[in-house]
């Protein structure tokens, strides 16, 4: 008991630098031990700090799932949308107030499966939002069902004999739809991930950062891969950094080499730029450039 009291006193000594950015009344978070999501939140906070954007001009939107909880934990304007609808909500937010930096933080199941349609169209229109897709290869919150990113032969609760459906290659999907910035990092590559988040925030147009994250309780346990720490060790030994790699070569097979890096950085007119440009051509001087729907 005496030990415990001293421990509590010690904790009061100084606050963690992240405490300012977190809704401390919601802590401790629900993520499992050795889950990589907390690391992603820290990296996002560092990236926001690094890019010098005022936190009043940032909105975080997320969908459903383990990653969906990010919007609830991070202390900026945030919204936890329905399943798969993080991108449409973010699109609306961006169009209503184009000055806002809208960040979508959501999982692979939310963005690529249920929200897959929204994902491809936001990338096609080059909507100026930043999407952080946390890929843990499985629907983790609902019990480890197979996701469209589950690698071939990996076990999931709805694929007890191993997965036979070919998974999505997320960077290739985003690239082929016309995203402006595409990168992939693992939750072990913290500093590179932070830089990628900062670059994605600065890049105009649709930016995607895929973060490969360990899921200890469902993916690792079902596939007998140990804990999240073992998965981090696996990423340490089996990740290859290849900037500018052909996105077609970025498939992730079960326990195979994972290619990481910054793959795409291109400048295409964003949705609002195209809108202003086209209506400027059609209506000439009568057209006033779009400045958002909110009154200042």
């Amino acid at each position, binding site marked *: 008991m005496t*030990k415990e009291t001293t421990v509590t006193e010690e904790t009061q000594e100084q606050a963690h630098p992240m405490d300012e950015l977190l809704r401390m009344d919601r*802590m401790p978070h629900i993520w499992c031990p*050795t889950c990589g999501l907390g690391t992603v939140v820290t990296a996002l906070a560092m990236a926001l700090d690094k890019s010098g954007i005022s936190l009043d001009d940032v909105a975080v939107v997320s969908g459903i799932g383990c990653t969906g909880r990010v919007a609830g934990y991070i202390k900026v304007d945030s919204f936890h949308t329905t399943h798969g609808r993080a991108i449409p909500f973010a699109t609306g937010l961006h169009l209503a107030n184009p000055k806002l930096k809208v960040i979508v933080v959501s999982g692979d199941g939310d963005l690529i499966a249920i929200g897959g349609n929204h994902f491809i169209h936001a990338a096609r229109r080059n909507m100026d939002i930043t999407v952080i897709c946390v890929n843990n290869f499985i629907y983790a919150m609902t019990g480890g069902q197979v996701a469209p990113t589950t690698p071939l032969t990996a076990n999931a609760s709805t694929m007890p004999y191993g997965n036979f459906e070919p998974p999505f290659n997320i960077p290739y999907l985003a690239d082929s739809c016309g995203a402006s910035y595409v990168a992939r990092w693992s939750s*072990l590559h913290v500093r590179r991930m932070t830089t990628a988040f900062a670059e994605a925030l600065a890049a105009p147009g649709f930016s995607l950062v895929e973060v490969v994250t360990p899921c200890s309780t469902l993916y690792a346990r079902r596939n007998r891969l140990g804990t999240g*720490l073992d998965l981090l060790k696996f990423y340490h030994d089996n990740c290859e950094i290849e900037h500018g790699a052909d996105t077609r070569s970025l498939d992730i097979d079960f326990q195979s080499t994972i290619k990481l890096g910054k793959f795409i950085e291109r400048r295409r007119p964003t949705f609002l730029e195209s809108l202003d440009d086209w209506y400027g051509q059609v209506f000439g001087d009568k057209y006033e450039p779009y400045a958002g729907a909110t009154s200042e």
Partner: protein
Amino acid sequence: MPQDLPSTPKSTKMKYWRKPLDADKVKVPHGELHIIVNRCKGCLFCVEYCPRDVLQMSEDFNVKGYHYPEVKEDDACVNCQLCELLCPEFAIFCVEKEEEGGGENES
């Protein structure tokens, strides 16, 4: 007793294959680690990935029933803040320790 601790022996002192030319001018920063014990869920990320092998797992439990990291070698921390970035529980952080008396060198 924590059984699954990383057993790979790591050198605690940084070894140079050659002494850097500016070794007498470079000041190695020192960090002071703060561990919020009761937030820890014992994931071992900080212990495993500390480049100077500063941390070890405690034999005691925190209020959640997990072993937590504790500082093994107080002077070895160079304030790289990797543990702070990696910790998924926001339970560990590092502040630079101001030291009087000029550069301190190891090698």
